[in-house]
């Protein structure tokens, strides 16, 4: 393989001595283009046929804004909850040996495997005012099903494995010596965990958060059953897209989709930047 001559002001940094860089990079780009870029640019293309004023009208429509708010808001809250409890679950699974550990470990993956509609129906049955959990919560004045709270619960369910599975290997990697070092320096257990161990997990936790969040934003199947789908209250953006499609209003559907795409991309980009900064530091 010949090296590309330096053309204008920039050129590839010599990537590495391992051969095959050109071939694999070419393949990766072609693959990503085919699988991700072409469908997504089709989306943008389609919504561009609207023209600015129409696009703007759809984007600022109160129902659209509300739906986006609900989608991103609930996904954010659910991801935040998952970060806390997912990390605890991962911690327990790695650090302790107890009967049934393997079963629990396997259970974590269930939300990955279960058809999301099944999860949604199961959750709705549980949390509806007549269901087991719903009946318990109703006297307290807490309504779960058919409210944004229901959406959050569905997204917590869906997002849990993302956090657990990203944090778990990092906890496994924690060096026993680091804990011992903290102890010899006088740190008690609490200080060791909160000053030494958890900050070390931060990059993995952020990744887990990003994955759970991204999944939550795009989640459809499990949410629509429990959400009740009241416009302006518990209607998520993906559902609104489907509604517009059913009305044969393809332009509006793609417009909402494009906004979702832009927002998601922006947030993931920010998270990735935070990540690469911490990576560079911690090595």
């Amino acid at each position, binding site marked *: 393989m010949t090296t590309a001559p330096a053309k204008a002001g920039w050129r590839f940094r010599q990537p590495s001595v391992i051969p095959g860089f050109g071939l694999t990079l070419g393949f990766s780009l072609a693959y990503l283009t085919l699988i991700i870029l072409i469908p997504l640019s089709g989306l943008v293309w389609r919504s561009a046929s609207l023209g600015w004023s129409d696009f703007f009208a759809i984007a600022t429509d109160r129902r659209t804004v509300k739906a986006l708010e609900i989608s991103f808001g609930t996904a954010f809250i659910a991801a935040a909850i998952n970060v806390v409890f997912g990390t605890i679950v991962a911690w327990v699974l790695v650090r302790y040996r107890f009967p049934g550990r393997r079963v629990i470990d396997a259970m974590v993956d269930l939300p990955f495997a279960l058809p999301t509609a099944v999860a949604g129906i199961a959750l709705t049955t549980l949390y509806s005012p007549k269901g087991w959990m719903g009946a318990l919560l109703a006297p307290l004045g807490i309504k779960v099903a058919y409210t944004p709270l229901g959406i959050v619960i569905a997204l917590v369910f869906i997002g849990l494995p993302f956090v657990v599975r990203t944090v778990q290997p990092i906890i496994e990697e924690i060096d026993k*010596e680091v804990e011992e*070092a*903290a*102890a010899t*320096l006088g740190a008690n257990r609490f200080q060791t965990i909160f000053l030494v161990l958890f900050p*070390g997990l931060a990059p993995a936790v952020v990744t887990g958060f990003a994955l759970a969040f991204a999944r939550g934003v795009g989640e459809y199947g499990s949410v629509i059953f429990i959400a009740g789908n009241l416009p302006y209250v518990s209607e998520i953006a993906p559902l609104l897209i489907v509604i517009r499609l059913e009305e044969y209003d393809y332009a509006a559907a793609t417009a909402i989709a494009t906004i979702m795409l832009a927002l998601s991309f922006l947030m993931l980009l920010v998270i990735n930047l935070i990540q690469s900064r911490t990576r560079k*530091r*911690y*090595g």
Partner: protein
Amino acid sequence: MEVRVSNVRKEFDRFPALRDVSLDIRSGELIALLGPSGSGKTTLLRLIAGLERPTRGTIFFGDEDASNRTIQERNVGFVFQHYALFRHMTVADNIGFGLKVRPSAKRPTKAEIRRRASELLDLVQLSGLEKRYPAQLSGGQRQRVALARAMAIEPKVLLLDEPFGALDAQVRRELRRWLREIHDATGHTTIFVTHDQEEALELADRVVVMSQGRIEQIGTADEVYDTPNSPFVYGFIGESSSLPVKVEDGQVWISDRPIGLTAPELPDGEATLYFRPHDIELLDECNGCIAGTVAASRRVAGTRRVELEIGGGRERIEIELPVGHPAAQKSRVAFRPKRWKVFPKPVEG
């Protein structure tokens, strides 16, 4: 602070890692625990730190029984082989950690902690690296930071577990000299574990030689090297040659000839003679000597190492001669060890 280890035994799953070890460490001493892997040296160090609990026995810090003290209460500085730095903290935060986690009544102010950290960085010759992260440092620098972090808490004892084990030879030698200087400047009682005899002999005031969970010998570098008190120490420290001999009436015999060495305190019977290959005198005539046929001779650095066959080729030993010594050209060499020791053969069964 004096440290006294008294009749300590440690078992892991019924397997004894330490069997009845006693050791007195004087205040301000730099002491090395030396032994092959599995000799229990690291276990002993971890017991002193409180990272393990003894199965039996007590450990005193000064006059105080530390056995039931927690790790946190013992106030020891521990340096790990693989540094164990907190990688999400800057160098300064790493060093200040031990001060920061103190209960608020004893905690210095933030400015004070920062001042102390940069003072210690000066001491370990890393001034100006406060803001770096461990990942941005070399191995040698990381170990210096680890040492500074351990010293920040003003420990009663400094414990170092193979502190230079993960570094390359050059850095190792440099850090060795540097550690000695730091020790002389600060006067901490320091115990370090190593399997590198050169490191132990060069650095330590006293060397504790360990094998199979027991202390074989405690002494200065000179004592341990010149007068090893067991076959193990002879074999483990420095070069040694050994020959099977027989003791009769206090005379040492090889096959059917006395070799001119006396061991009156030993009982009659089979025994083994140990000596250093360079600690010999050559003899012209042999009446009472070890004589052997030259089997091979190699030049090793500044000396010539001659391999001799003794007693018709059944045993081979090595001796060292100065380069250019005429004896190396001869086919038969007679010599007598100048410093030597005979150990009776251990009773089998």
